[in-house]
């Protein structure tokens, strides 16, 4: 997934969590980059009409940006579910974050052929847990057993 899509996905999720614009500092923490890098990329995304930015408040995705963010989130969900269910990786969240930049959406689409994904994906993504909501539920059930 390219860098722009990773930013759009993160802005979209932070907006969802905060119920408002995504602040630069929070984006920098989540993406593991400097606030200066966030500002630079947000500026580029704004020029492309994918993000709106308000000084001292933060960034919000536009309708076009949201469509891209949702596609990116779906790609990310495929990667998480593939790692968790096919490769049986315990720490699938950390690994999905590490591998995300190297996995293109066409590759994820191919992996999607062998995983079970709910039709409402990515609406079921749990922004707080930063994971597919169904995987979070499965973990909770396993923890209870």
């Amino acid at each position: 997934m390219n860098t722009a899509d990773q930013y759009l996905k993160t802005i979209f999720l932070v907006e969802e969590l905060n119920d408002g614009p995504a602040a630069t500092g929070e984006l920098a923490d989540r993406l593991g980059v400097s606030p200066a890098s966030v500002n630079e990329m947000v500026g580029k995304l704004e020029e492309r009409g994918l993000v709106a930015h308000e000084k001292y408040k933060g960034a919000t995705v536009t309708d076009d940006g949201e469509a891209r963010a949702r596609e990116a989130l779906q790609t990310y969900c495929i990667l998480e579910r593939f790692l968790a269910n096919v490769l049986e990786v315990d720490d699938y969240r950390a690994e999905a974050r590490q591998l995300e930049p190297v996995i293109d959406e066409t590759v994820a689409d191919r992996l999607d052929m062998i995983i079970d994904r709910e039709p409402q994906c990515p609406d079921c993504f749990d922004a707080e847990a930063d994971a597919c909501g169904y995987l979070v539920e499965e973990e909770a059930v396993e923890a209870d057993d």
Partner: protein
Amino acid sequence: MSSVAARVDTDTQLARLLQIGVVLEEVVEVRAHRHYQSLPEAERDDDIEALLSAASEESAEHRELLESVIADLDADSIPFEEVEALVAESYGKTGPEDFDGVLYDQLHGEETAYKFYDDLVDAIEASDAEFGVDREALLATLRDIREAEAEGVEAVAGLMEDRT
């Protein structure tokens, strides 16, 4: 470390990406075989049989190459039978319905594999990390596989053109 950089930094990440490569190869291998079986008798011919059988064999070769690197990294590969069962399970929903569909699916499989190896080579080249396997040998293997995938794309595209 930035999480947005397309770079492979550790043996664990490398092994995981190679495991993904193995699964992609296994999917191509199994689907190519199933495609041929699913074609109606009237639509089967020597060219498509040769193409699908070569694709299946080539994927098996690539899988073995990747598996040997994965073993050198002290990681486990993904059993072929496991992926075979998953492909079989999903084939009803995702399998092509006619001859053109078979060729498109094969083309998509080869193109996806090419893109995967291309990104992986770039991500290894972008990193200064020392891996548990010889870096140059690894890159040479991955570049060879990538080249074979590019030839695979051409072969399918050629067959598609011949039929139009």
